[in-house]
């Protein structure tokens, strides 16, 4: 932490709510190098031999522990791809906080592509929080292309919260998941784009075991001239249940393409998709104005609530 400057510390606060060194295991990466790491008796973090990323191993039965692996970039023109693998053994219950903050004041693009693979053992449970944030006045773009792969064994549970509210110019998020019997995946994505920003969010979830379930819900706001694409496909290959929902507010000249899709390959698969895109309802603004807010304040409250 001591090696991080004020800009990096602010980024860290935005993406991981960290004001200080986190409790438990962590690996902090700044401008392409690890600047701090701690392991615990139950959670090990090792650099990959080829230096392309880290392996995080959580021993069987580990409960109520956390792993923080935030990344910050404050150097203009830095481009990196990092591969992080999480091996969560049986019967664990852990919190994993990832996320990336980019501050780009320069002319060149800064880019971080994080590839996270999760191997979640039987009956293990993870909660995964990933926040993206960008800042800086430079002409250079702030680009994030995260790939998340989730492999879930019997009765494993993963709750994933993906948040990108501010400052990322271009993002393509790809999430792939494969679920064995009884496994449960819950995804909550919150996204807001401004100016000329582009955000693509792609999900492919395979429900391969009986009793597996997935609930993938995205709430997003597209402002100014920004563009979003939400493309979620759930495949039901067994007696499973899947639900995907995209709920969006569109403003200014924003554009949104929602492509929810379902593929049932088993007669016992129960799959549902929903998608709704619309501007803020006039009556919502009027209601809050009758409570004393200006139109701009009302708009802000509605968006804050929607993305909460």
């Amino acid at each position, binding site marked *: 932490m001591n090696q991080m400057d004020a800009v990096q510390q602010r980024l860290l606060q935005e993406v991981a709510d960290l004001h200080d060194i986190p409790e438990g295991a962590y690996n902090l990466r700044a401008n392409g190098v690890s600047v701090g790491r701690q392991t615990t008796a139950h959670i090990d973090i090792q650099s990959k031999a080829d230096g392309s990323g880290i392996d995080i191993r959580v021993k069987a039965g580990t409960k109520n522990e956390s792993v923080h692996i935030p990344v910050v970039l404050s150097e203009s023109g830095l481009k990196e791809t990092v591969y992080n693998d999480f091996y969560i053994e049986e019967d664990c219950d852990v919190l994993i906080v990832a996320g990336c903050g980019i501050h780009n004041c320069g002319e060149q693009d800064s880019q971080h592509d994080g590839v996270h693979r999760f191997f979640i053992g039987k009956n293990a449970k993870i909660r995964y929080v990933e926040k993206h944030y960008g800042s800086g006045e430079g002409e250079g773009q702030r680009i994030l292309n995260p790939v998340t792969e989730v492999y879930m064994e019997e009765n494993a549970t993963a709750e994933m919260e993906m948040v990108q509210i501010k400052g990322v110019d271009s993002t393509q998020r790809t999430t792939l998941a494969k679920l064995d019997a009884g496994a449960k995946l819950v995804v909550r994505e919150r996204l807001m784009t401004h100016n000329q920003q582009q955000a693509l969010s792609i999900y492919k979830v395979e429900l391969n075991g009986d009793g597996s379930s997935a609930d993938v819900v995205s*709430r997003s706001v597209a402002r100014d001239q920004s563009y979003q694409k939400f493309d979620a496909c759930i495949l039901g290959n067994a007696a499973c249940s899947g639900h995907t929902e995209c*709920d969006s507010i569109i403003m200014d000249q924003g554009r949104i393409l929602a492509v929810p899709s379902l593929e049932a390959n088993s007669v016992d698969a129960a799959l549902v998709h929903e998608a709704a895109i619309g501007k803020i*309802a006039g*009556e*919502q603004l*009027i*209601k*809050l*104005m*009758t*409570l*004393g*807010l*200006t*139109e701009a304040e009302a708009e802000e*409250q*509605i968006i*804050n*609530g*929607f*993305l*909460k």
Partner: protein
Amino acid sequence: MLELKSLTFSAETDGQSVDIIRNLNLEIQDHQFVVITGPNGGGKSTLAKLIAGIESVTSGQILYNGEDITEKSITDRAKMGIGFAFQQPVRFKGLTVLDLLRIAAGKKLTVSEACQYLSEVGLCAKDYISREINASLSGGELKRIEIATVLARDVELAVFDEPEAGIDLWSFNNLIRIFEKLRNSDKKRTVIVISHQERILNIADRIVVIADGQVMKQGTKDEILPEIIGTTYAQNMCRGAE
């Protein structure tokens, strides 16, 4: 005091301009409980919206405590102490009951303060405080939360647009209780309720009958209610119009 002077509101219907409110004059005295009734399509709800600033008058003047508010925005009027409860309460994805009560109060209400407003409208606070104001709430629940937001604003003039619309009989009985409480509360408020319901008319200080965009008659409850009872504008929720 609220004064409506020569108020006219026109709207375009099928390419033609129709006067919904026609040269209407009305005075509402402070701290009175006034029920506005009249036939459907007579302009009652429009009048309520004109008072709150949700619709703009075509001509005429609205004075509130002597000040001309005709050109003032919804927000300005709200800040002057005018509250408005919608006939169809608005739903919000993501905003909770507590969020809305805090916005209404204009300050960071504590949970226990917010719960008090919910208790006043007969809702068990702990069940509702963190609920989202979305489709999971029934019409009666929404209506009561709507009223709670008006109470939380601590308004001087509260306008309720057909509070009985879209609720069942059980909720209606609760609603009457809320209005009776509002009527008898120590807090001095001016209350205007748009309603056809006999039981709401029955707790009025004054009744105003509006038809064809004009005041057809007005007076104390004892003067007006006997004349209109049993008509479509003084209905009994249990029996319907007779």
